[in-house]
C-alpha cells in the first residue's frame, strides 16, 4: 500500500490531533496515529479512550488499507521538512512504514490497525448546529472556571443546558462560577450534559481557524462535534451537576460599577503583594472610593491602591482571591463591569455593566469571598 501526501498538509493535521495524545497511556497503541486509506482519502485518528479526534486529508493513492503509526517519531520527522510531497509505503504484513522524501528514506515500525480501540458509534443521537463563533465564545468564557478536584469530576467539565430558547453553559469549581447564556443558539430538544475540559480545549483550537457552523450530535454517553473535515468525539462526564441556580443570590443591594481594565490592572498589581498561597485581597468600599489592599505577612509585602467607582449601597469590606477576580475580569470584554454584593460572607456577582451587554449574550460570573478574620 502506497500513498503520496503533502508534508505540510499532513503535519498541520497531525499537530491538531496530537493534542489528544497523553504523555503516558494505559494502552501502548494509543501512542500511535491510526491511518486509514480509502478512495484517495487518508483518515487519521488519535484517541485517549475518552476523547477521539478524526480528520480527513486527500492523498494520491490507488490502494486502500490501514496501519497504526508511532505518533512522536512521525511528528518529529515531519517538523523538519520544508513543503514537499512524501511517499508512504506500508508493508501490510509487517506493518513497517517507509517514508520517502526528497532527501532520503526513513523506516519506522507500525502496528496492526485492529489493535486500535474502536470508535464510539453515534447511535440514538440528537443533533443541533451552532455557529463556530458562538461555540468558541462559550468555551473560552467558561473553561477557566472549571475545577480540578478529582473527587468531584462533574465540576471538572462544562455543563451544557439546551433548551428551545437558548443554550446555557456553566462552569464552576465551587469558589467561582460562570453562567453563559446564548439566545442565538437553540435546540429542538431539551437536554443537559457535561463536557470534559480536554475535548473543549481541543475544540477551541479548531474553532479559532474556521467560520463554519459546527454540528453537534449527542446521546447519553458521548458527544460528537463535526466541523469542516474534523470530527471530535468525547465521552460525557457522568453524574449530576450541582444545583448552581440555588447558589446565585438574587437580592444584592450593594452595587459597584467600575472601569474593567483599570480594576483589572489594579487587581493584578496589588495581587503581586498578596500571599503566594492564598492570593487574598481586601476590598474596602466607602462612598465612591474602592480601596484594594493585599499583604504577605511572611515576607512583609504590602500594597494598597485607591480607585474611584460608582457605588450604591452600604460601606463594606470584603475579601477575594486575586486570581479569581483577575480571571473573571479578563474574560469579560465590556468597558465597565458591575459587581453586586450583599454581605462580606456572601457571593459577589460580576456582570458587564448595562451599557456593555450584547444582544443574545447573557454572562454572569459569581465569586465566593474569603472570610476576613477581624
Amino acid at each position, binding site marked *: 500500500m502506497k500513498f503520496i501526501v503533502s508534508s505540510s498538509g499532513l503535519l498541520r493535521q497531525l499537530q491538531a490531533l496530537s493534542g489528544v495524545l497523553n504523555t503516558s497511556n494505559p494502552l501502548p497503541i494509543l501512542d500511535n496515529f491510526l491511518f486509514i486509506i480509502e478512495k484517495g482519502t487518508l483518515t487519521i485518528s488519535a484517541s485517549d479512550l475518552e476523547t477521539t479526534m478524526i480528520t480527513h486529508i486527500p492523498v494520491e493513492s490507488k490502494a486502500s488499507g490501514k496501519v497504526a503509526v508511532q505518533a512522536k517519531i512521525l511528528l518529529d520527522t515531519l517538523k523538519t521538512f520544508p513543503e514537499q510531497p512524501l511517499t508512504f509505503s506500508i508493508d501490510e504484513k509487517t506493518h513497517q512504514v517507509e517514508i520517502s522524501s526528497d532527501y532520503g528514506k526513513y523506516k519506522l515500525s507500525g502496528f496492526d490497525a485492529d489493535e486500535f480501540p474502536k470508535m464510539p458509534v453515534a447511535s440514538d443521537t440528537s443533533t443541533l448546529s451552532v455557529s463556530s463563533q458562538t461555540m468558541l465564545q462559550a468555551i473560552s468564557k467558561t473553561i477557566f472556571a472549571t475545577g480540578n478536584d478529582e473527587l468531584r469530576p462533574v465540576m471538572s467539565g462544562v455543563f451544557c443546558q439546551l433548551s428551545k430558547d437558548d443554550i446555557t453553559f456553566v462552569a*464552576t469549581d*465551587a*469558589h467561582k*462560577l460562570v453562567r453563559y447564556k446564548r439566545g442565538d443558539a437553540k435546540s429542538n430538544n431539551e437536554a443537559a450534559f457535561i463536557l470534559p475540559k480536554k475535548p473543549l480545549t481541543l475544540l477551541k483550537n479548531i474553532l479559532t481557524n474556521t467560520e463554519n457552523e459546527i454540528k453537534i450530535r449527542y446521546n447519553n454517553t458521548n458527544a460528537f462535534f463535526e466541523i469542516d473535515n474534523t470530527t471530535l468525539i468525547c465521552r460525557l462526564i457522568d453524574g449530576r451537576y*450541582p444545583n448552581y441556580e440555588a*447558589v446565585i443570590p438574587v437580592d444584592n443591594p450593594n452595587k459597584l460599577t467600575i472601569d474593567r481594565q483599570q480594576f483589572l490592572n489594579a487587581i493584578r498589581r496589588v495581587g503581586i503583594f498578596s*500571599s503566594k*498561597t*492564598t492570593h*487574598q485581597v481586601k476590598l474596602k468600599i466607602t462612598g465612591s472610593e474602592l480601596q484594594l489592599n493585599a499583604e*504577605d*505577612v*511572611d515576607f512583609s509585602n504590602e500594597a494598597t491602591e485607591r480607585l474611584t467607582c460608582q457605588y450604591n449601597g452600604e460601606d463594606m469590606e470584603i*475579601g477575594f*482571591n486575586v486570581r479569581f477576580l483577575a480571571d473573571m475580569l479578563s474574560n469579560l470584554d465590556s468597558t465597565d463591569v458591575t459587581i453586586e454584593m450583599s*454581605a462580606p*460572607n*456572601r*457571593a459577589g456577582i460580576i456582570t458587564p455593566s448595562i451599557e456593555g451587554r450584547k444582544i443574545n449574550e447573557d454572562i454572569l460570573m*459569581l465569586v*465566593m*469571598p*474569603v*472570610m*476576613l*478574620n*477581624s
Partner: protein
Amino acid sequence: MNESTNRTVVHMDLDCFFVSVSRLLNPKLEGKPVIVGGGERGVVAACSYETRKFGVHSAMPIKMAKRLCPEAIIIRGDYDAYSKKSDEVTEIIKEKMPLYERSSIDEFYMDLTGMDRFFGSYKYATEVRKKIISETGLPISFGMSANKTVSKVATDEVKPNNQMQVDFGEEKNFLAPLSIKKIPMVGEKTYHLLRSMGVELVKTVQDMPMELMGNVLGENGITIWKKSNGIDNSPVEAYSEQKSMSTEETFEQDTIDVQMLKNILIAMTEKLCFRMRSENKMTSCVAVKIRYSNFDTHTMQCRIPYTGCDHTIIARVKELFEKLYNRRMLIRLIGVKYTHLVGGGHQINMFEDNAEMISLYQAMDKMRFRFGEDKIHRAAALSFSLRGFNPFNGLNNSPVKRGIKT
C-alpha cells in the same frame, strides 16, 4: 557524623526564673524561701533553691508544698514581667550569638560551631553569661558540649548560677554516673518503668543494647538510648514563622472510651481552629496521633484544601481517628496537629459552606475574644474544657494531666 561531633552547642538556663524575676521586683524576697504559684488548689509553678531543700518541686500542689516548707512565702506570678525579662535576655543573646533557639521562656540553645577559630567558645559563652547577669540582674547557668542533650544535662548539673563544659568525647563518661531521670524525655512514668526493670543509672542504659530499649519503649526507647549515649544530632533551630500547630494530652488514666476520645478530639480541634483563625491562618494538612498504653505511637495525616473551619476539620479528624484506632487497646495519649499553615482567611465554598455557618463562626469567635476562649463550645466538647494547666490558679477540670502545648 563528623560534622555533628564537631559541633559546639551551649544550653543556657535562667535559674528558677520566676523566683529570680520576683526577687528583682521585690528585693525583700532575697535569700528567703519563695514559691511562685497560686490559689488554695494551685500548684507550684517555680520555687527557690531554699525551698527545694525541703523537697518542694514544681508542679507539686501548693498545699503539699506548704506542709513541707511552712516558712515559704507564696506569691502569685506576674507573667507579663516574666516575658518582658525573658525578652531582655533574648535581645542580648540575639546580639551576641550567631545562631540561637529560644526553646522556652527561660531556656536557650546556641550553636557556637566554628567560633573557636576566633575566640574560644567557652570563653565567649562565659562573657555572654556575665553580660546577661550584669545587664539583667538574673542568675543564669550554661552547659557546653557537642550537642543539645548533653549541654542541657550539664546545665542541670551545675545549677545554680554556674557553668561547665563537657569535652568532646567525654559525653558518655559524663552521663554515665547520673540518674536516668536526668535524661530529658524520661518523665515520671518512664522513670518508674525503667526503675522496675532495675535501671537506675545512665550507665546501665549505655550498657544495654539499643534494640532492648526499643522493644520496651518503642521509638522513644531508641531516642532515650541515643541520648543516654550522648548522641543527639538535632540542630539548633533559629526561630521561624510558625509552620504547625498542635495539641496533645496524656491521660491521668489510660482509657478505651471511644466516645470520650472523640469528644476530646473535637474539643482539641475546636480549640486549635480558634487559635488558627485568631492568628488569621489556615491549614491544609491535619494529623491525629495516638499512643497506646505500651507506648506504641501512631500518627496519620491527610491533606485538605486550605481551611480554618471547625466542621471540615472535625470530620477529617474523626475519620483519621477511626482509621488509626484499630487495636482495641488502652490509649494513654491523643493529639491533633495542623501543618502547612498559611496566612489568610477561609475561601468560602458555594456548595459546602453557607452564609449562616460562616456567620456562626464569626459570632463565636467574637464571643471568645471578648469573654474568653472557654465560654462557648460544641456540646460534645463541653465536658472537656481543655483549659490546660494553669500554674496560677491550678484549675484543671479536664480528665487529662498535662496542658496544651502549641
